[in-house]
């Protein structure tokens, strides 16, 4: 208990210091050896974004482009179109060459695993639209599902020097990637899935399967005393810091990583990588280094049964990190959120 209280104080003090020293954070985030690599990645993304914009007509370019300081930054949702109005260019309205350019842009911005995950989430929504339960829907007739209902927008002009954001999202997906020169932030982002398991071309697809399995892997790797610390004795029915909860920091709970052994800490890092690794690996490695530095003040909390296949919630929270994994009363419908309370929408790098 005393250790828990002490760690709470350490966490609060660290967070306060980080917030108070906000101006210094950018310098701490980037590391010199990686700057050239990330600058190259930014240049590739900017080039892909410009090529995509060049495929659009004037009306399309007007739809895709928003000022950097517009409220569009924080306008995203996990809800389907028809229930939530998105802005930007709709994938279903693009021609084949325009779609190819959009795909190239996403592939430039995301890691191979990240792009696959995004694709699996979108394909899952298509299954939701066309599958046995056939949600269907269409434009102007209530909620709309499927691969056409994803939107792409640029908040700020794509640039290798000035900050801008690539926003891509639809039902169960929100990717907010802020680029500022050689630095990047992909928070807040919301990868979710329904169905959580489906078959495509004879293969079983689980868009968030690794997140689920690695979470259950860690909780089951804890000893009895550690589990007692990690498991919350109450039900968590939904995301605490989902869409619309920008700028809020809740008190961390669960077991601190400092109370985990080396193997368990590695497992925790590998869970985090499932979210932090969605963006291009050159940015992700810098982000992972930051997360490793803060690992002793990072907490792992669990709510629910510990047998894989059960409905269980988990949260990972550190000074610059919040991850929540929240099944929606079913293992076949998962919401997650990925945040950095010090750098959502690139607040610390886009100055």
């Amino acid at each position, binding site marked *: 208990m005393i250790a828990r209280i002490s760690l*709470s104080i350490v966490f609060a003090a660290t967070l306060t210091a980080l917030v108070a020293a906000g101006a210094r954070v950018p310098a701490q985030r980037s590391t010199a050896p990686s700057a050239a690599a990330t600058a190259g990645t930014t240049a590739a993304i900017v080039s892909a974004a410009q090529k995509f914009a060049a495929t659009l007509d004037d009306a399309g370019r007007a739809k895709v482009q928003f000022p950097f300081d517009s409220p569009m930054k924080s306008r995203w949702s996990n809800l*389907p179109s028809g*229930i939530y109005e998105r802005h930007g260019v709709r994938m279903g309205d693009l021609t084949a060459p325009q779609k190819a350019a959009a795909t190239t842009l996403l592939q430039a911005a995301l890691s191979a695993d990240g792009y696959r995950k995004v694709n699996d989430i979108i394909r899952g929504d298509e299954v939701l639209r066309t599958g046995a*339960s056939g949600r269907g829907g269409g434009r102007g007739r209530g*909620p709309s599902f499927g691969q056409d209902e994803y939107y792409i927008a640029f908040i700020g002009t794509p640039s290798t020097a000035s900050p801008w954001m690539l926003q891509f999202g639809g039902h169960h997906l929100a990717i907010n990637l802020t680029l500022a020169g050689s630095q990047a932030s992909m928070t807040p982002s919301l990868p979710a899935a329904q169905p959580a398991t489906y078959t495509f071309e004879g293969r079983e697809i689980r868009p968030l399967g690794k997140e689920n399995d690695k979470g259950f892997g860690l909780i089951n790797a804890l000893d009895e005393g550690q589990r007692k610390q990690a498991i919350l004795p109450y039900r968590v*029915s939904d995301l605490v810091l989902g869409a619309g909860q920008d700028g809020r920091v809740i*008190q961390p709970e669960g077991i601190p990583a400092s109370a985990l052994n080396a193997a368990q800490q590695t497992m925790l890092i590998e869970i985090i990588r499932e979210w932090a690794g969605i963006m291009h690996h050159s940015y992700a490695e810098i982000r992972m280094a930051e997360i490793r530095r803060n690992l002793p003040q990072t907490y792992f909390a669990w709510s629910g049964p510990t047998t894989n296949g059960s409905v269980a919630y988990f949260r990972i929270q550190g000074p610059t990190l919040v991850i929540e994994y929240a099944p929606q009363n079913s293992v076949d419908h998962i919401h997650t959120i990925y945040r950095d309370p010090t750098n959502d929408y690139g607040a610390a790098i886009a100055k």
Partner: protein
Amino acid sequence: MARRSRSSAAAAVAVLLVASADVSAHRRDEYLQAARVALLPDRVTVQLDLTPGIEVADAIVTLVDRDRDGSLSAEEQHAYASAVVGALDLRLDDTRLPLQVNVSSFPAIASMRGGEGTIRIEASAAHRALAAGAHQVFLRNTHQRHQSVYLANALVPETARVTVLDQRRDERQTELTIDYSVHAGTVVPNAGWVLAGLPIAAGLLLRVTRRRRRVQDGSVQ
């Protein structure tokens, strides 16, 4: 007039379609009530986000729209926010604290019926500046218990003078107990009050200075 009727009918159809559609993204038959508690040495603030699922939205809309005219007036919004806050039991060190609604916002009825709308309410209770040491806040939410799911969390305090030590909840999160400590120091007045008070202070200073000058000039006996 005809145009207005047609647009009203179209809106009604749209609402019905939204209400009957299978919205997969959110819980359908529950009222999600998320509470966050912010602690200061002299104040407790409770932020509530209330999101009715699509199947319970009508019942919640009926509670707010008392005259059934299809719109939520300022009075109706205030009455509902007060009712929600009235269903909260907030205690500081075992003494009940009355909460006052600071601000509330309501979504359009259509978006509530679509399962999207979130009612936001912030209420706070000012209290005597706490002595340094251990303190405890207890919050119980009994609003619409029969159809609600709850989230309840302490926010990381905005001042280094307060440290949250522990949180305990019942299984449904209708009850939250927060143990926290207050560290010695001066309670810094709210920045808004400071800003509001600056012109008054400047005015007083000016008057005193002028009076002194007049005294020195001998114009005041």
